[in-house]
């Protein structure tokens, strides 16, 4: 049974209130038994989405593995803010090697435990979008194709935040970064670039691929748990807003994550062995402008000269996601996890699968 059994939404927030559900449906994060894998006192910025994501993911993974788990970390914000020598926030065995090799290091850890007959010990690799989509992609693709027994988690905040907000290939069009300034004719990052790593992971036909956001904790924890029930290469792409890099209010982090999903800009889906098996429907469709206006990285689209044409192009990207993944309720029957529909495209009316 997936988390979808829970359907109580607090007024105005969509958040699932743990007080309203039975104990079996409550989140790991709400439980006193949670591991606090990334414990408090670390140096993340106020409102850091990545810190939330890492804590949610690793606590859920620790729960799923009964504490028999090792975490491997790429260089990046998460590594830096969690381990200022000689302090550490990690309450799991944790290894940081380099920026671009975390998937391969995780493979090595998994191979060691396999050779030692310790198949009960599971491995989670984690990195930001730079360490996953760009510099770590070679090692990640290798880990995928070998189907190594690793869950790799990307905390995607859409740029190189640790080095001061430079563009990555996960940076969305029109976003301002320190290397895609809105100067001259440029309106931030270019359209028509970047890579969709969740779909690239699906193309590797690995056992499990999922996307999630930090705004839907039950969904995120469900996907971690689902991933840990499987063996082989698994990939989880978690959308984590960054107040520093996005120029957003620290209290808007969770709100922005929810808006990314509700606008269709960040499709939340699951896939197994190369086939999309479920999508999280948009509950209340919102225009992308609601999402963009909260962020300084898009301010140049609204002032000093409004650029509705650019906003419209971003809206087209969201609309495309909605069509492509069948994100609206009427699009497909499949509204839950592990549902009967193998592909949202196949269920769409009148259009062939791409």
């Amino acid at each position: 049974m997936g988390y979808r059994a829970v359907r109580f939404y607090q007024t105005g927030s969509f958040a699932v209130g743990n007080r309203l559900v039975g104990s079996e449906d409550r989140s790991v994060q709400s439980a006193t038994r949670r591991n606090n894998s990334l414990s408090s006192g670390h140096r993340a910025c106020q409102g850091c989405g990545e810190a939330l994501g890492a804590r949610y993911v690793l606590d859920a993974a620790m729960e799923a593995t009964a504490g028999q788990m090792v975490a491997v970390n790429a260089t990046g914000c998460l590594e830096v803010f969690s381990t200022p020598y000689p302090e550490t926030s990690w309450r799991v065995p944790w290894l940081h090697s380099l920026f671009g090799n975390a998937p391969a290091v995780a493979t090595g850890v998994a191979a060691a435990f396999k050779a030692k007959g310790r198949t009960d010990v599971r491995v989670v690799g984690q990195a930001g979008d730079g360490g996953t989509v760009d510099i770590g992609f070679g090692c990640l693709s290798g880990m995928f194709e070998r189907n190594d027994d690793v869950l790799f988690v990307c905390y995607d905040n859409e740029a190189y935040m640790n080095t001061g907000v430079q563009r990555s290939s996960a940076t969305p069009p029109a976003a301002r970064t320190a290397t895609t300034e809105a100067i001259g004719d440029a309106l931030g990052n270019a359209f028509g670039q970047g890579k969709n790593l969740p779909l690239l992971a699906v193309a590797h036909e690995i056992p499990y691929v999922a996307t999630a956001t930090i705004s839907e904790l039950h969904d995120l924890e469900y996907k971690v748990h689902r991933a840990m029930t499987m063996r082989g290469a698994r990939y989880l792409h978690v959308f984590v807003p960054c107040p520093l890099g996005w120029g957003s209010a620290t209290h808007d982090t969770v709100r922005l994550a929810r808006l990314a999903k509700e606008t269709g800009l960040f499709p939340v889906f699951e896939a197994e062995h190369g086939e999309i098996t479920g999508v999280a429907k948009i509950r209340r469709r919102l225009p992308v402008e609601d999402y963009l206006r909260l962020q300084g990285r898009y301010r140049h689209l609204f002032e000093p000269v409004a650029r509705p044409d650019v906003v419209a192009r971003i809206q087209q990207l969201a609309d495309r996601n909605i069509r492509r993944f069948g994100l609206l309720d009427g699009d497909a029957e499949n509204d839950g996890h592990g549902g009967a529909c193998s592909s949202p495209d196949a269920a769409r009316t009148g259009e062939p699968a791409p």
Partner: protein
Amino acid sequence: MARQLEGSRAVAETVARCRPEVVCAYPISPQTHIIERLSTLVGAGQLAPCEFLNVESEFAAMSVCIGASAAGARSYTATSSQGLLFMIEAVYNASGLGLPIVMTVANRAIGAPINIWNDHSDAMAVRDAGWVQLFAETNQEAADLHVQAFRLAEQLSLPVMVNMDGFVLTHAFEEVDVPAQEAVDSFLPRYEPRQVLDPAAPVSIGAMVGPEAFSEVRYLAHVKQLQALDAIEEIASEFASAFGRRSGGLVSSYRSEDARTVVVALGSVLGTIKDTVDELRASGQRVGVVGIGAFRPFPAAAVRHALERAERVVVVEKALAPGAGGILAHDLSTALSGLPLDVHCVIAGLGGRAITKASLLELLGDADAGQLESLRFLDLDRSLVQGELARMAAVRRSGPTAENVLRDAGVVAARLS
């Protein structure tokens, strides 16, 4: 029992008897035969338990070894040349983390121009990476050094690189006595890591270290290398007792006790040099040889002791620091500073050019006559060099140098000396 074996196979079989638990492989000539053989041994169940992984790059190969070693597994890989450079960030990381990985480097030139043949450019490119660097003279020594390497690495929590000359050793068939399993088992205890990823006792490995402690952590890496100076000798002695033959050690001397001129070198070329010295000794010349078995840590005291009675030291080295000259010669000069002797650097054997006895005889004749420069390039074809220099002086768009030189040479891949 001694058998006629290819060097790579002898190394692979020896590595297998060291019972690595994780072996990672990415193909690059001339080390491929080593990992091919290990793959077969794992596949056939003759090396078990062991995870053999075919990865997508050398960077991944070393990274997998890092993860495996941090999880407490005895870990091994092999590479060469461009592969060593491609993994260099992880090479530094492995030593910085203090992980006792053992790696064979089948020494090969670095491009451009691309060249698959032997020299020591690859090993020299990572000389400051914090690894112990051992050099094998023969295939027997290459095999034996791997047993010692695992012992040394795990004793000190330090990665060890065993260098063996690409093709010259890796592809040469000669008699090798692969160390017996029982003897290796008693020589090489179970790996007991100082640090390990263990869910029962969680630790963080790889924390960020700022100016408040970075110097101390780096100094401790230096201390470990200095400890290796003693450990390398002790392990070599113990190996000699256990296996009945001498392999490894910091330096080896050959007919150098009363020598006026001593030739210093690394690796397989020592054999040719010893033959040359024998010939010169027969004609009454006081010439000897000192081989460097461990290049990192640099055995300054042992080298000084071995060379202090010489009048002249001729360093024959298969690597070049462009704009500076020799690399081994530079370290040697520092170790010998204050002694009344001349150090000559001879760059030889680059990219697989054969170092012949005839050339060495001429070289040592010049040395004896006081006609050897402080830096010489052995068997350099001056006309080819002058041709390209003239072309570059004559016309701005003179074209790619390597292709020009090849065209002038008039032969492709056939010119060995």
